């Protein structure tokens, strides 16, 4: 089971901030994951947009990055505080 979290506006777009899923063997990296989740969640491209970055186990990654089933994956829309 892989834990996927959605942050900021992505939680609103996806409709949840957390999604636990068993990834099929075909999902080996972040590129596969983006396509898989888009389809599974019936989205309109939000998770394919490279502006929304991915962190694996609390590290923002350079993509495409390899995935393990036990990874925690976070989708991070553009950030900014202050």
């Amino acid at each position, binding site marked *: 089971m892989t834990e996927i979290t959605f*942050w*900021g*506006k992505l939680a*609103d777009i996806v409709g949840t901030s957390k999604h636990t899923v068993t990834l099929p063997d075909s999902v080996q990296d972040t590129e596969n994951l983006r396509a898989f989740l888009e389809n599974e969640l019936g989205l309109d491209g939000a998770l394919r947009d490279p502006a929304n970055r991915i*962190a694996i186990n*609390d590290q*923002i990654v350079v993509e495409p990055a390899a995935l393990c089933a036990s990874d925690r994956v*976070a989708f*991070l*829309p*553009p*950030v*900014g*505080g*202050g």
Partner: protein
Amino acid sequence: MEPVISNDVIMPGELLHAFQQRLENSGGVVSFTGQVRPVNSSGIPVKHLHLQAHPTLTRGGIVQAVTEANARWPLEAAAIHHRIGDIASGDTIVFVAAASAHRRAAFEAADYLMDYLKTRAVFWKKEVTECGAEWIEPRQTDHADFSRWTLEGPRHARH
């Protein structure tokens, strides 16, 4: 000093006082306080901002930015307090302070840390008005401000 990321109300006067109490040899202290403006850029009254942080990435990034500031400028101390959760109009979102023997270093470090917080720090910001809620991303000018430090940028503080 460890950055503080918290739901608690930020009191800039008290933080500035406490920050200065700890200094031993700084000639200059610069502080920046960012507040929720009562009206947004379209002129619509703002009820509150909602700020979301990540439990590990946010703090890690800020610690790195403070390390970078210490490498660029001879600081005696730097402090960052960032509020999260719902922040009412007029309330303080962020307080940054930098102290150095020389004032240019303090000014530039505080300026840099704010540019970092505005464009690179891992926060997500939603503006809530009577017309609804909208996620806010950094403006072009914020990115331009940050790029000052990555291209030629101001030279390191003179001594």
